[in-house]
C-alpha cells in the first residue's frame, strides 16, 4: 500500500506515545492510588497477622487463591490466541495480537503475586525456589505448588519473549522518530534493528518458534494450576476432568478479557480504524465456542458427580446446586453460558456492545466459577463436625478487587510507551500473503531500511 497510508498508521498508532493528555495522568492517579491502598492493606495483613482475613479452619483458601486461578486464567487470552492466530495466519489477527499478548504478561504478573500474598509467612516465599543452599534442602518436587512455580515462570518467560520479539521493529520506528533520551532508550530496546532482510528473516523464524512453543506451555500452565486442586483428596476436587476444564475456562475468560480491553482501547485511543467490528465479531465467535465448551465441561463434571452419588461429594454438590451457594452457582451458569450463548449465538447481537456485555458477564462468571470450586468443597469436607463457612474480610476484598485496577494501570502505562497495535504487522498486512515468509534473497516487502 501507499506511503501515505504507512504514514497514517505511524501517526495514528504513535499518537499516544507522543502526546500526553490529562486523561492519562488522571487514569494513572486513580488506578495507582487503588493499587497503593491494596498494597498497604496487604502490608497491614502481614504486620497484624493473617487472622485479619476471613480464612479459617477448615476453609484455608479463599479470595486470594480464587484471584490466583482467575488471573492465570485471564493470561491465556493473549499468548495462546495470538500464537494460534499467527500459526494459522489469520489476517484479521494483526491489530489484535499485541493487546492480547500484553494481557498475558500482566495477568501472569498479577496472578503470580497471589501465591506469595496468600502465604502465612510471605517473607520466606523464596523457599519455593530451587536455589542451592548450605542446608541442601530443595523444594519438594512432588508438590503441585512447586510445579506451579516452574509452570508460571516458564510461561512468563515465554510470553515476555513472545511479546518482545514483534515489538523490536516498532521500537526501531519510535527510535527513528524521536530524539534525545527517548531515542537512546528505544535504541537499546530496538536491539540495533535496521530492518535488513536478514534481520526480518531471523525475527520471523524466532516468532514461528515461539508461537509453536508457547501453545503447549500455555495448555500445561493451567493444567498444572488445576492440579493444585485435583491432586488433593477433597470432595469435588479430585476430578480427572479438571485439566481440560481449567484450560477451557482460562481461554474463555481470556477472550472475554481481551474483548473488554480492545473495546476500551478503541474508545480511548481512537483506534476505530484499526479495531473494527469484524475483529469483535470474530473473537465473539471464539467466545461462543468456548462458552459451549465450558458448558459441556460443567455438565460433564456435574453429571458424573451426581451419577456417582458419593456421599461426601453429594454434600458439596447439593450445597452448590440448591443450598447456600446456589445463588452464586446459578449466577455463574447464567453469566458463563446463557448470556454468552444467546448474545454471541445470534448474529443480531454479535455487535461490539453485545461482545462487551457478554465478556463482562463471562469475567464475573469465571471469577465465581473459581470461587465455587475452592470454597464450598473446603467448607464441606468429610467429617460433618468440621464443616465451616467462609466470609471474606475487607482486606481480601480490597486486595482481590484492586487487581483489576492493577491490570488497568499496567495497561495504561504500557500503551503510553509502546504502540498497542503492532505497526509493522499492520503494514505487512497490506502486502497480502508475503509477510510471514520473507524470501531471504529478495528485498523484504516491508522494505524499510532504517539508517
Amino acid at each position: 500500500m501507499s506511503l501515505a497510508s504507512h504514514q497514517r498508521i505511524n501517526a495514528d498508532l504513535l499518537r499516544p506515545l507522543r502526546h500526553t493528555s490529562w486523561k492519562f495522568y488522571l487514569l494513572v492517579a486513580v488506578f495507582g492510588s487503588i493499587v497503593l491502598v491494596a498494597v498497604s492493606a496487604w502490608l497491614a495483613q502481614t504486620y497484624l497477622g493473617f487472622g485479619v482475613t476471613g480464612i479459617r479452619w477448615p476453609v484455608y483458601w479463599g479470595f486470594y487463591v480464587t484471584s490466583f486461578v482467575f488471573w492465570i486464567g485471564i493470561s491465556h487470552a493473549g499468548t495462546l490466541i495470538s500464537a494460534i492466530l499467527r500459526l494459522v495466519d489469520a489476517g484479521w489477527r494483526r491489530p489484535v495480537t499485541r493487546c492480547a499478548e500484553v494481557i498475558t504478561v500482566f495477568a501472569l504478573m498479577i496472578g503470580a503475586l497471589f501465591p506469595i500474598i496468600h502465604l502465612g509467612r510471605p517473607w520466606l516465599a523464596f523457599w519455593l525456589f530451587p536455589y542451592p543452599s548450605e542446608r541442601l534442602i530443595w523444594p519438594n518436587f512432588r508438590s503441585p505448588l512447586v510445579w506451579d512455580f516452574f509452570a508460571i515462570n516458564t510461561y512468563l518467560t515465554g510470553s515476555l519473549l513472545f511479546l518482545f520479539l514483534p515489538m523490536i521493529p516498532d521500537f526501531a520506528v519510535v527510535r527513528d522518530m524521536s530524539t534525545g533520551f527517548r531515542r537512546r532508550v528505544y535504541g537499546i530496546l530496538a536491539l540495533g534493528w535496521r530492518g535488513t532482510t536478514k534481520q526480518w528473516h531471523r525475527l520471523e523464524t524466532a516468532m514461528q518458534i515461539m508461537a509453536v512453543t508457547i501453545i503447549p506451555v500455555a495448555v500445561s500452565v493451567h493444567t498444572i494450576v488445576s492440579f493444585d486442586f485435583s491432586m488433593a483428596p477433597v470432595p469435588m476436587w479430585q476430578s480427572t476432568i479438571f485439566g481440560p476444564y481449567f484450560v477451557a475456562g482460562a481461554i474463555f475468560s481470556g477472550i472475554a478479557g481481551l474483548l473488554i480491553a480492545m473495546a476500551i482501547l478503541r474508545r480511548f485511543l481512537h483506534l476505530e480504524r484499526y479495531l473494527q467490528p469484524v475483529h469483535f465479531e470474530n473473537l465473539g465467535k471464539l467466545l461462543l465456542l468456548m462458552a459451549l465448551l465450558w458448558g459441556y465441561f460443567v455438565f460433564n463434571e456435574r453429571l458424573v458427580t451426581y451419577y456417582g452419588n458419593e456421599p461426601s461429594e453429594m454434600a458439596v454438590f447439593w450445597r452448590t446446586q440448591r443450598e447456600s451457594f446456589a445463588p452464586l452457582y446459578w449466577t455463574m451458569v447464567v453469566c458463563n453460558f446463557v448470556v454468552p450463548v444467546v448474545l454471541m449465538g445470534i448474529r443480531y447481537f454479535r455487535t461490539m456492545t453485545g461482545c462487551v456485555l457478554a465478556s463482562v458477564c463471562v469475567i464475573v462468571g469465571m471469577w465465581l466459577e473459581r470461587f465455587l470450586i475452592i470454597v464450598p468443597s473446603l467448607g464441606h469436607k468429610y467429617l460433618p463436625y468440621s464443616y465451616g463457612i467462609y466470609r471474606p474480610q475487607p482486606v481480601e476484598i480490597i486486595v482481590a478487587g484492586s487487581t483489576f485496577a492493577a491490570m488497568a494501570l499496567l495497561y495504561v502505562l504500557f500503551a503510553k510507551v509502546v504502540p498497542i497495535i503492532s505497526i509493522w504487522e499492520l503494514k505487512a498486512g497490506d502486502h497480502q500473503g508475503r509477510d510471514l515468509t520473507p524470501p531471504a534473497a529478495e528485498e523484504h516487502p516491508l522494505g524499510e531500511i532504517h539508517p
Partner: protein
Amino acid sequence: MKWGMTADLDRCNGCGACVTACHAENNISTVGADQASRGRAKHWIRVERYWEGEFPDVRLTFRPVMCQHCENAPCEPVCPTYASHHTEDGLNAQVYNRCIGTRYCANACPYNVRFFDFFNPSWDKPLQLQLNPDVSLREVGVMEKCTFCVQRIKATTNQAKAEERALVDGEIKPACAQACPAQALVFGDLDDPESAVSRLSRSSRGSKLLEDRGTQPKVTYLGRQD
C-alpha cells in the same frame, strides 16, 4: 517402631480432659471466644459429638479426633518445603520452622486436624509460666498439629537408651492418653504384636476413620457395642 493409638468409643465420655492436657503439654495458645467463633481455635485433639435420633430418644457418641498419623498421608506430598513429612518411626511430623504457610496440607487433610496460626501466640499472665520448655512455640503463619507428643517419645527413648534397656510398652504416654480418666486412649508401638495398642487395634470392634480414603491411619477407633 511404628507409633499408633487406639480410642475406645465405649470408654470415652467426652469430658475433654485430653483437649486440656494437650493444650498444656504442647503450648497451644488459646485464641479467645471471638476468634474461636471465627474458626481460629486450635485443638490438636477435639472431641466430636454426634447425636443420633430425635429428643428424647437421643444417642450421643463422642469421638476424639487428632492427627491420624496416616501411613499414606495426603498432607505430605503437597507441602512445597517438606515442612510436613514422614519420620522413620512412622510419625507424621510438622517442622514449624520450615513451614511457609501455604496451608495446602490442611486442605488436603481429610480429617481437618491441621491448625493455622493466624496470629502470634500470647498467654495471659501468669499462664506463660506454665509453658512446656520441651515444645517450641509457633509464630504467626505456620501450620501446627498433633505430634503424638513427639517430645515425650524422644525423651523416653533417649532415657531408655541411656539406661541400656528396651522400651517398655506403656512407658510412653502422650498427654491426652495420660489425662484420659476412662483410659479410652492407648498409645504404643504397632510393630510390637504384643503391645496393648497392637492387641486393641486388632479387635473386631476396630475401624479407621475415613478408611475408604486410603490414607492408612495409625489411629484405630473401637466402636460402641450397645
